[in-house]
């Protein structure tokens, strides 16, 4: 049996045909608020249940509970606020109870309507300290937070139009993955979060987990990432290649998750696990420095945080750093390899990215040659 949705209910906030027609008829009379791409994908994700049990943007009660207690106001675990920021000018003349249309700034298209349940102010510095554990502006999440507007509005949404999606082929919503996992006969599914092209360390961890469950759900994050990270299309092509040559048939599902990286380390690890639970995963891989950046978090802090959530409803699988050992003759890890450092080749994502930047093929003790080949075919595989 696939995992139950978080909070016990898979949310569906996509307007049906009749609802949509009714909304469209009245839409000219509803005030508009323009939203950026990051917010726009949050709207789609809420509507399709990826962020279940959320039905909209957080009101103050949920916001403050998440900030301080890492739980929603009904005690359900939740670690990253899902918020909609607006300026005073944007909501001039609007009050709680009013309906607004949320318009994608990028596509100039109405994507949802929202009832304003609450308008409230927030303290960005306090937010940064609690969510990112730092207010250092060099942290990409903090920098992004500080640029946000001065007010937040909370309320339920209803999706009326989808965003353009260059990765339609790789997009599955939770209701679809749930059907898919059942059709494949998978009862236990391990989710793998990634923002990288796969190297041997990733593959080792995925296969170690797959040994004990029915299926592997590789769910690369597509959306805002920091410069220097792999481009989305590179990650997808690299994974397609890895799966084709190195995984058994019907053992892996590859589908994207459109959302932005927060780089909130431990809190984001819980958030990532919750989203995968909504897709139906029963297990979730948490590696070293999951969702981390720089030296803001301890190497295993993102694993330690799970002990505070006995009611998370998805089993974390904690993995130590994997490396190649010449003595063992393959990939292994600290937990099972007894050999000294001299036999080990540590696989550094940074080192591999450097090699690729210099158009050098990473050695096969670090990356599968077929995967390296695909990545090297891109002129510039990195976000600039």
């Amino acid at each position, binding site marked *: 049996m696939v995992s*139950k*949705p978080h909070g*016990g*209910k*898979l949310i*569906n906030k996509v307007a049906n045909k009749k609802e949509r027609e009714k909304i469209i008829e009245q839409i000219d009379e509803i005030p508009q608020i323009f939203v950026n791409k990051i917010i726009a994908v949050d709207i789609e994700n809420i509507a399709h249940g990826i962020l279940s049990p959320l039905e909209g943007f957080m009101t*103050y*009660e949920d916001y*403050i*509970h998440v*900030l*301080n*207690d890492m739980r929603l*106001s009904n*005690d359900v675990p939740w670690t990253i606020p899902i918020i909609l920021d607006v300026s005073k000018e944007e909501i001039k003349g609007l009050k709680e109870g009013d309906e607004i249309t949320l318009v994608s700034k990028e596509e100039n298209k109405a994507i949802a309507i929202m009832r304003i349940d*609450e*308008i*409230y*102010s927030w*303290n960005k510095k306090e937010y940064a300290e609690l969510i990112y554990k730092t207010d250092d502006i060099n942290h990409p999440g903090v920098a992004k937070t500080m640029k946000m507007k001065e*007010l937040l509005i909370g309320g339920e949404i209803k999706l009326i139009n989808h965003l353009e999606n260059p990765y339609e*082929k790789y997009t*599955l919503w939770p*209701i*679809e993955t*749930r*059907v*898919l996992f*059942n*059709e*494949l006969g998978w009862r236990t599914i391990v989710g793998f979060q990634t923002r990288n092209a796969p190297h041997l360390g990733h593959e080792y961890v995925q296969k170690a987990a797959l040994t004990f469950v029915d299926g592997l759900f590789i769910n690369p994050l597509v959306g805002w990432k920091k410069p220097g990270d792999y481009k989305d299309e590179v990650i997808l092509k690299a994974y397609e290649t890895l799966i084709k040559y190195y995984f058994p048939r019907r053992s892996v*599902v590859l589908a994207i998750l459109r959302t932005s990286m927060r780089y909130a380390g431990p809190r984001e690890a819980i958030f990532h696990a919750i989203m995968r639970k909504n897709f139906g995963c029963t297990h979730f891989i948490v590696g070293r420095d999951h969702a981390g950046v720089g030296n803001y978090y301890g190497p295993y802090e993102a694993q330690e945080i799970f*002990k505070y959530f*006995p*009611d*998370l*409803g998805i089993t974390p699988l904690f993995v130590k750093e994997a490396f190649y050992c010449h003595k063992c003759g393959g990939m292994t890890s600290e937990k099972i390899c007894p050999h000294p450092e001299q036999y080990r080749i540590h696989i550094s994502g940074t080192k591999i990215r450097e090699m690729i930047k210099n158009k050098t093929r990473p050695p096969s003790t670090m990356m599968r040659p077929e995967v390296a080949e695909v990545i090297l075919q891109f002129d510039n595989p990195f976000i600039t």
Partner: protein
Amino acid sequence: MQSKLKSRKYTTVSIPTTLYNRIKNLIKDTGFTSVSSYVIYILREIVAAHEEAKYKEPYTEEDKKRIIEKLRKLGYLE
């Protein structure tokens, strides 16, 4: 607009003193700093399991057929 609010609120639940003492002994040298923190931990685990046991997948047979068709088209199913 709201002013700052403290989120954490507690209430009292009675348990037998004998059970309280038993838990107090049990949690010595563990990560739990009080009987309350242990009881909260255990209750959250149990309550979540009971809540989830009631869940049924939200799709109808018709939804399922439509989704399977899409999954076939995308190549996820044969």
